[in-house]
Every structure is written in C-alpha cells, then in structure tokens.
C-alpha cells in the first residue's frame, strides 16, 4: 500500500507513484506527476534536507487535503526525502489522479509550489570546503503566494 504522505531518509521511487495511480479508478481520465531531483551545481557534493519531524507530515497532509477538495481529485500522493542525497537523486514526488486533466495538472503544480514554502524543510549544500544553507528564492515565494491569492479569491 502506497502511503499518501511520506517523509523518509530512504530513496524515493517516482515510477512506483505513477504506477499506483494509473489504471486504478475507472472514473479517472488523468494522472499527473512531478519529480524534483538534486541538480548539479558548482562544488555540490551532496544536498542535505533537514526537516521538523511531525510538523512536516502535518503540513504536507494539510496541503494534500486542500488540493483534494479544491480540485475534486481521486487520489494525491506526496513523498519527500530528507537527509543527504547525491546529484540526480529524487527529493520529492507529487502525483494526482482525477476525472479530468486540468484538475490533475493544476493540483500537482499547486502541491509542489506550496510545499516549497509551507512545509518545514531546509536545504543545505555540502561541498569539499564545508556547507551552506540554501536561501529561499523570491520566485518560490511568488509561486506560493499565487495559489494563496487564488484560494482567497474563491473563498471571497
């Protein structure tokens, strides 16, 4: 059984998430997914993800519930890795299934945009000479705010 929310130090398996949502519900016409993975950058040897156990899982579950209700999804899965990982390894996988494509695609975009700024994860880059914390990007904050505004408009 594929857990809906998973925060783990073990390697993630993106194809397994897609497999879990594909061909499983006769009312689904669409399955969308997103994989975030460690990108090479000068000096990077490993990327480390710190988090706040317990709070992280709750934050992801709340984002998932919001997506499930807003887009009438059939299923949604969020798996996020923590600890150290190498270039090319998967940091996060988000997948959603729905009757129609726009719901599945938008929900996946929403989940990845929001979890970047609303779940307590912190990235640290380890190099040969030491390590540094990754600073938040303005573009990530803007993407997250976009969804906050969208939802506020609908609730208004």
């Amino acid at each position, binding site marked *: 059984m594929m857990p809906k929310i998973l925060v783990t130090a073990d390697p993630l398996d993106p194809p397994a998430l897609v497999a879990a949502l594909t061909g499983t519900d006769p009312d689904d016409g669409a399955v969308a997914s997103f994989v975030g993975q460690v990108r090479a950058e000068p000096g990077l040897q490993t990327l480390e*993800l710190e988090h706040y156990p317990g*709070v992280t899982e709750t934050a992801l579950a709340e984002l998932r519930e919001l997506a499930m209700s807003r887009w009438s999804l059939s299923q949604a899965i969020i798996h996020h890795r923590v600890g150290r990982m190498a270039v090319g390894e998967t940091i996060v996988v988000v997948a959603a299934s729905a009757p129609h494509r726009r719901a599945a695609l938008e929900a996946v975009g929403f989940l990845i945009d929001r979890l970047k700024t609303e779940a307590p994860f912190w990235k640290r880059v380890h190099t040969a000479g030491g390590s540094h*914390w990754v600073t938040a990007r303005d573009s990530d904050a803007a993407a997250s705010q976009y969804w906050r505004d969208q939802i506020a408009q609908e609730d208004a």
Partner: protein
Amino acid sequence: MHVHIRYMAALRDRLGEGETTLDLPPDVSDSETLIAHLTASDAAAAALAAPEIRLIRNDRIVTRPSALEDGDRLAFCPPFTGG
C-alpha cells in the same frame, strides 16, 4: 513562565545553539516580546524579528505575533526551502 526554544537550520548556526529552556520575566507575553528579550542578551537574536522568520509553537506552524503560555515548545525557522 518557562519555554523551550529550538533554532532551526541557518538560525541554529547563527545563534550558536540548537535548543534551550528559558525562565522568562513577566513582561514577555508573546513571540515578539520574547524576541526582544532574547536580543537583550544576544544581539544576534535580532535576526528573529525579521518578518520572514516563521514560528512553530507546540508542533503547529503559527502566525506571528503568537501569544505564549507556560511550557510552550517553540521553534524559530528560517524560510522553508523544501521540494
């Protein structure tokens, strides 16, 4: 009152300690007066006042200013950078 404080990620490096338990004077009533109190003994704590610093209180992400109660477990967080 007593509160337990953690500093997460870059804040832990900056403030030089991971966690601490403090006995607070009566004029500390919420997150912002707590930050002022911390800054009085360590100027580096002024960084906590920046609006982008998030607060986790008793395992819930809360908005600032947040009222405090005796026994609270607090975590000051730099902006999240997951995904």
